[in-house]
């Protein structure tokens, strides 16, 4: 029996942090379409259930488009069971909207509450699994782990939405103290909340996993994104990550130590992107690092313009530092030399650190050479 574990789709996100209105709308639509693709994939691959471990939506109030798309995706696949655990972003907006508009929820949409709710799923191949979940809040968080009772003779999947910690400490409703869930007969702890995929051992019997988000929405969600495909048999539950995002977000660290001009920077970024397997469909943030020559000239605007057509979205940030050869300026009788020597003295006496010293030198030298335009 196959089950899909996904979470944190955050459908209907605004996405305006990095993107302009047009592309933000485009990405919102793509998020929705990726969800629909996921359902189609499940139907096509003979998946019997899709487990959504929280944050299906980004907010309590969602657009009619998102509501209708999700509703119809569920409704039109009556052979697929949808297990929907609400997260901190979901609230009850979607469910109430569906009840208002369509009067009842689809039969194949299974919900959870703030107490443990279990569903036994019997697969077409005879395998069976019990899916148990609970929606955490401030009231129940201290009691949930203790109140979980599973039939250890069965295959058990438990689903929660929150931040994993080794032990509970902070008074936070979204904390999942992993230790308290060990040795409870859990084969697969399907978690949501962290947006990067992760699969780790829970105890001798089982594993826990964060599905990660289905599509990266920003540069804090870089790398391949997708879902876990679970194979449930009589003895085990095996999990395999399936990359599924239409677009991948990359943050590339690009060493520009040898670059002297903007075109060199462009070439370095291209090389790094190629090595990382970036395609024209992806979102890229290039962070320039390394120690550059004093007279290296980088125009970030030019670099951004040169590469903006090569990726779906591109931005660049300069964290490189000029390499200061103090000896070079030791006998420089110019104003520049005088300037550099003073800064060196300041570093030596601790008035300045190396980083700000190199930045000051680069700026001062470029200003004196009329190569810098302060905006």
């Amino acid at each position: 029996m196959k089950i899909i574990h996904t979470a944190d789709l955050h459908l209907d996100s605004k996405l305006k942090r990095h993107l302009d209105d047009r592309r933000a709308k485009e990405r919102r639509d793509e998020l929705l379409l990726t969800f629909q693709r996921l359902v189609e994939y499940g139907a096509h691959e003979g998946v019997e259930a899709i487990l959504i471990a929280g944050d299906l939506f980004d907010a309590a109030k969602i657009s009619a488009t998102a509501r209708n798309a999700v509703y119809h995706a569920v409704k039109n696949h009556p052979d697929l069971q949808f297990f929907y655990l609400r997260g901190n972003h979901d609230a009850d907006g979607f469910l109430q909207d569906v009840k208002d508009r369509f009067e009842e929820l689809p039969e194949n949409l299974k919900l959870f509450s703030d107490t443990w709710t279990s569903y036994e799923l019997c697969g077409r191949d005879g395998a069976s699994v019990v899916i148990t979940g609970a929606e955490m809040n401030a009231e129940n968080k201290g009691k949930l782990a203790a109140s979980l009772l599973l039939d250890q003779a069965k295959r058990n999947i438990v689903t929660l939405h929150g931040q994993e910690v080794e032990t509970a400490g902070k008074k936070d409703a979204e904390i999942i103290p992993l230790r308290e869930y060990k040795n409870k007969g859990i084969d697969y702890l399907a978690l949501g909340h962290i947006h990067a995929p992760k699969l780790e051992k829970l105890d001798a019997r089982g594993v826990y996993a964060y599905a990660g988000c289905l599509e990266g929405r920003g540069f804090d969600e870089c790398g391949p994104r997708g879902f876990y495909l679970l194979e449930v048999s009589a003895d085990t539950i095996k999990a395999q990550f399936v990359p599924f995002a239409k677009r991948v977000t990359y943050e590339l660290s690009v060493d520009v130590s040898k670059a002297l001009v903007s075109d060199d920077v462009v070439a370095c970024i291209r090389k790094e992107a190629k090595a990382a397997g970036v395609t024209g469909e992806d979102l890229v943030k290039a962070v320039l690092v390394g120690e550059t020559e004093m007279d290296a000239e980088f125009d970030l605007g030019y670099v951004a313009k040169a590469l903006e057509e090569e990726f779906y979205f591109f931005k660049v940030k300069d964290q490189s530092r000029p390499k200061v050869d103090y000896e070079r300026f030791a006998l420089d009788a110019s104003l520049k030399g005088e300037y550099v020597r003073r800064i060196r003295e300041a570093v030596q006496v601790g008035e300045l650190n190396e980083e700000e010293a190199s930045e000051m030198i680069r700026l001062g030298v470029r200003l004196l050479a009329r190569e810098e335009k302060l905006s």
Partner: protein
Amino acid sequence: MRLLRINIERFGTLSQFSMDLKEGVNEVLEENGWGKSTLAAFLRVMFYGLEGARKKELSENDRLKYQPWDQGPFGGSIEFEVNGKRYVATRFFGQKEKDATFRLQDATTLLDSKDYSERLGEELFGIDRESFEKTSFIDGDAIRYHGINSAIGSKVGSISQTDDLANYDAAQEQMKDFLNANSPKKRTGKLFQIEDSIKELERDLKKMDAAKESTEGIKQLREQENEKLLQCKAERENAQKELSGLLEKRKILQDQKHKAELEAAAVARRSRLDARQESFGGHIPLREELQKLKADAEAVRDHEIRSEGTAKPGENERLERLKRYFRHGVPSEAEVLEQIGHWNSLQDGMQKRLHLEEQQEAEKQAMEAAETELKRLEAAADLAVAEKKKAQSQKKLWGILLLAAGIILGLLTAVIPLNSIFWIPSGLLSLVGVLLMLLPVISSGAKEDIPMGETQVIRLRQKEREEKIEGLKQTLRAQDETNRAEEASVRTFLEQREIMYSRADAENLLYELKNRRAEYQSLLSEEEEAKQKVQRLEEEGAALRKALETSLQEVGLTQTFQPTQHAQILDWIAQTLQNLAAYESEKREDEAAQKALKAFLEEHPGLGSAEVSDLSEERLKEQEEALTARVQELSVKESGIHETISAYGRSLDEAYDELERLREEQERQEALKEERDALAARYQLVEKTDAYLKAAKEGFIARFMQPVKSAFDGYYELVTGRLGSGAEFQIDANMNIYRKEVGEFRDVEAQSEGLGEVIGLCIRMALLDVMYEKEGPLVILDDPFSGMDAKHLEGTKKFLEKVAGKYQILYFTCHESRGMV
């Protein structure tokens, strides 16, 4: 660089002025107003071009100041030497900037040279105009020192070949602008504004908790309403259930009633059916039997009708009359046709006869007409002859006369000697006269034949006519014969059959005979057919009656009806069919009713044993109405709760919108904070860079300050004649000069005019010494000592001597006392 010659074409008050210069001091001692300052300005202009092009003040705008009154071109040339090479630089200016010209020539070859451009001063001296004015150009009216600029400073620090110092001002300006624009302290500063925005957002974001609480509150209220709704729904459903129970009871009651009705109806129908069955007398005939009987009876009836309508032999009156008509025998058709032929021939003959008679008559008339004509012609001929004779007589007379005239004329001509030409008319007259006399003789024979020919013709024709008439008569006679024979044949034929003949009716009689004959034949054959038909009908009728009898037997009616009583039989059948239809209909109704009753009982199996309500139907109805009202009331209440839930839903939407807005503001705030932090870091960087650059600049300049101080001290001591007097002064890194007074160093700008001029002079020369370690520029002194105290004048000479050793000096003065040479 050494200036060799000055040529002024026109420049201000100077015109056509030339001056050769030598090394050392070149003194120009002229009174005020001569144009010394103009000359000095000319040199500046020759090196640097006109100044103040956009200024409106005369004093600040070289063009306005030095342009001739007629606004014509002005300018001139200078000859100078650099590194052993001599050049001539020529500049002219017009009313507009574009009118300015510059030309550099090799002084030896007078060929154009590209060694220097129109930026001659910058290229020769390495300093701009401002720097030149601050140093090389020492104007007595502006000798006081007001500090240096970067160019001078850069020149002063010219050990380095970079433009750092020269660009410092621009860099410092940029940093200053940046720091101003992004200041965290000024209201117009971006950091200040971002911080302001962050605080404003912070204030707004304080609503977040309240918004969340409010959202939760609304959700709870909606949840409560949802619970109420569920309760209300449950109540309504209970009431509906109770109502359904009541309805059920009522229905049972009604069904039982209905069952009783159905059973009673069934009983009544059964008895009616039995009665109907009896009315058939024990045997209910089959519909097919009745149909057969009916068909047979109808066949007999129809046969009778047909028989009645058939004509019997001997009943045809027409035939009888024809028989009498043809009692003498029936002629064959051929005979009749023959007689008709005779008659037609007779008609034709009569027609011919008539035609002959007409011809004959026509001929006779023609003959009479011809006779008349003949008589007329003879009369005319006689008349013509008479006339002719008369005419001939007249012509003869004329002829005689003409002949006589001719002869007379001839005789006269012959006798009297007239013109011989008169012989011609004479001859002509004679000739004509002779002809006239002879003409009647010639024509008399021909004219007499004409009347004679025509009458002959007429007579011939008359004869022919007579013969023709005779022929016609004979033909007529023959025709008459023929006609008579034809007519006789027809008459005989008719009279033999006792049909009275008349010529007028003969044709009709013949045709009538013909038609009657045909009719007679036809009627005879009809009669024969009728006989056969009657026989057939007789046979048919017998068979049909037999069949009817059989049918009667089958239905047991032989005692009731005879086969001949088909009308009665048919009536009986019609009646019986009606009864049968009614019986069948009732039977079907009964079966349907039985079926309905059975179905009803099957549908309501427990009806028989169902508990009868102890309440009457009316009471049940009352209770039902009460429950219906209750259900209605609960429905209304439910709708109301729905509306409340919807209202909460809308409020919740608004609350979510508000939360969303606050979330967006939070994101915006975070973004602003990021921006602020980045900008603040940048601001700090620029601030520090500014500070360190400033310090570097000061240090950098200060390094070169000492040579300037030393040079200044030297010049000052020279001018003042006081050794060590330089120690009274301090020069800072910005080249500001301070003099110690009353134990403190004070800015020399506050000094008196005399001392200020000395200081200005000395510092300028000191700067020149440091700026130009090797070859210095031309130094133009425009009466620099005019404001100095007399005690310093001696020193100024020494000063000039000293500087002349290093620089080429152009010294202007208007007073001998200040003359150096």
